[in-house]
């Protein structure tokens, strides 16, 4: 627990000092929204289009953060530091999952209002949308931390990470979009399938946290 908190604090402190990840993600999201506006030739979005644009943007911004999350560990010997200490490798995994989740939530705090303004999305569905995003972010963060650990020690790591990530994240996108689409519908939010989709997201999060915990020490060896 102490190791988890120490690593988490280290990463957050570093991010606050260098501002490397979150501002880049936010800028990327804003630019992507503009691209979508012209690519789709729409100035107002609702329902499935709104959900798709928002989630695809969050996903690609997440990949930016995921590619970077272990770079300091690799280049400055952080993996050695963890392995030399009498701590479980899973503390590192848990800390990195939380770091990514925090970055994504910070991104969404900026990007969702911008999105709502740019595309005239009704505000009524935004609160339950936040709940959807929280669960989706944990799924993104968990799989992201796992894949990033695999990729960081391979060649062409910036390519391998997205290549592995995108298929793995399809269920998250499906479930998050499924939940978000009725929330952003033109006539106001609907909650018919909300529970089912949230259950899928929660199940996904649980499965991959379990997988991550089970295999992470094997990733740290050697």
């Amino acid at each position, binding site marked *: 627990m102490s190791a988890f908190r120490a690593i988490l604090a280290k990463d957050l402190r570093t991010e606050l000092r260098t501002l490397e990840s979150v501002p880049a993600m936010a800028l990327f999201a804003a630019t992507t929204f503009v691209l979508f506006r012209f690519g789709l030739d729409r100035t107002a979005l609702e329902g499935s289009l709104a959900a798709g644009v928002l989630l695809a943007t969050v996903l690609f911004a997440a990949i930016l953060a995921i590619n970077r999350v272990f770079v300091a560990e690799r280049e400055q010997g952080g993996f050695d530091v963890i392995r030399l200490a009498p701590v479980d490798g899973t503390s590192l995994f848990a800390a990195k999952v939380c770091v990514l989740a925090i970055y994504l939530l910070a991104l969404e705090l900026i990007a969702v209002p911008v999105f709502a303004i740019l595309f005239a999305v009704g505000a009524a569905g935004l609160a339950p949308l936040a709940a959807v995003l929280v669960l989706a972010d944990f799924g993104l963060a968990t799989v992201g931390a796992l894949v990033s650990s695999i990729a960081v020690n391979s060649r062409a*790591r910036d390519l*391998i990470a997205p290549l592995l990530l995108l298929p*793995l994240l*399809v*269920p998250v996108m499906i479930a998050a979009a*499924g939940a978000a689409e009725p929330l952003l519908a033109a006539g106001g939010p609907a909650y018919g399938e909300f529970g089912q989709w949230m259950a899928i997201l929660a*199940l*996904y999060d649980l499965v991959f946290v379990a*997988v991550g915990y089970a295999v992470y020490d094997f990733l740290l060896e050697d």
Partner: protein
Amino acid sequence: MSFKAPRILPALTVVTLAAGFILVFYFAPNDADQGFIQKIFYLHVPLAVCALVGFMVAAVQAVLHLRSGDPGWDARSYVSIHISVILGVAVLITGSIWARASWGKWFVWDEPTLVSFLIVFLLYCTYYPLRYAIEDRERQARYASVFAITAGAFVPLNFIAVRLAETLVHPRVFATAEGGLTPKMTLTFLVCLVGMALLWQTLVRFELAAKSTRARLGRLRRALEGDEVAAGGSRIAPVPREAPGAG
């Protein structure tokens, strides 16, 4: 670690598949709705089932590899995925043919199983770039096992998510033969399924034997050339250079 080529298994496979072939064309009745083209079901579905089960088997073999450190399990896991991916290509092709014959389109997003399978296939295709991107053999095997386990956990989740998406958004277009299989069709299907499973196992055994032999050959060649042989290295997974592992 060495793998021998199977003897009885190939013969058994050929017999079962031949029996299945005969049953498909001479025994199973034509489907009322789709007619003759429905018979591709006897090829497509067993291929898909065997590929998916193959992925799960690979995940179990990966767990055994991580727990024991025995490179033999890594070899089995690698080959299981390899053969299942090859079957997966066949699944997608036969699925396309079936879709084209039934609805006139080469791919249908309405059929959740086909879509789920495509996603799973794409995921397992990334297994190869991953292995080739890691140079250290032991680490490569370990990371590949982690991937096989993660992907194995992913497969059921993926099918659940996609199916839910399709049922809630589109009604099931495919009132497939699953609902209305007559006993004759069931028998034919089972024979084909068993035949395909035997085929999968045969291909796996042959590939393991081939890799094992090639590795041993490489080792002997290097010993003949007077190179130092890394005696403990018995891995047959790919490395970026053209250097087979020792058997």
